[in-house]
């Protein structure tokens, strides 16, 4: 019986954001938008969902007069990401047997 994949992470854009954040200390919204190729609107919505699940921290600041959104992965997010990867590995291990 397959363990169910975390539905919050099994979505292209949210997984992309989490994969980017897992490798860095913090990233600006601009960086995430640039690397994922998503639209600002869609990215905002997905970031909000990850924030609600407490998978990421979102800090809104200003650089001069320009607003900035800085995202960081939380320990809960790291755990969820690791579980997601482990679950996927079980899918492949089972298929290879």
């Amino acid at each position: 019986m397959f363990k169910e994949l975390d539905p919050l992470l099994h979505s292209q854009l949210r997984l992309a954001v989490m994969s980017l954040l897992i490798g860095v200390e913090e990233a600006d919204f601009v960086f995430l938008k640039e690397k994922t190729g998503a639209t600002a609107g869609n990215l905002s919505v997905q970031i909000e969902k990850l924030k609600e699940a407490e998978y990421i921290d979102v800090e809104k600041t200003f650089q001069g007069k320009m607003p900035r959104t800085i995202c960081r992965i939380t320990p809960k997010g790291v755990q969820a990401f690791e579980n997601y990867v482990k679950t996927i590995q079980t899918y492949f291990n089972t298929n290879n047997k």
Partner: protein
Amino acid sequence: METKFTEQDSLQLINQMIQQAQNNFQKGAGNITIFWGCLVAFTALLNFTLAFVFPGAQSCYVWFLMVPGWIVSYLMGRKEDRSAIVKTHIDRIIHSTWLAFGISMVILQFVFWSVAFYFDEYRHFTMMTSVILIFTGAAQYITGKACRFRPYVYGGFIFWLGAVICFIILREVPFHFLILTVCMVFGYIVPGYKLNVKAKEHV
């Protein structure tokens, strides 16, 4: 609308994004290195020239130029830090390495000058350039390895080579400044420039 995708796609995406997050060079990443390279090379050349005009130790006062250098470098770093769109763990390692280098330089000066005042002995200053080059080489080498940028790694070796040459010609102190200048050009300025070119390509 969100697209559901397969487990295979998931793994591919994770790999792709993790790679994207690595090796991110910010535009102008080599500016601080170039700044220090130019400042130290200029000061070393000035010291070399003045050493022949004022044969005593007075010419060494030109190194007080490093004090405003630290201030400018701090301001440049702060500006770079604020405008960075991503901060990686590697950035923290590199920052800590250069902070450790800076602290080591301050302690080194304290030790050298303390020995001078305590024992009224100045011969150990002939080793100063060698010791500084060893530390600089180590910091530059670690930076190069951490960010996987070979010109910085080679820069580290250039500083270490310079340290050995200075030690071989220990008594010829004015010529240590010429070696220091060459090390700064090939260990800092050229790699810094190459880093800027690479960062520009990534933007």
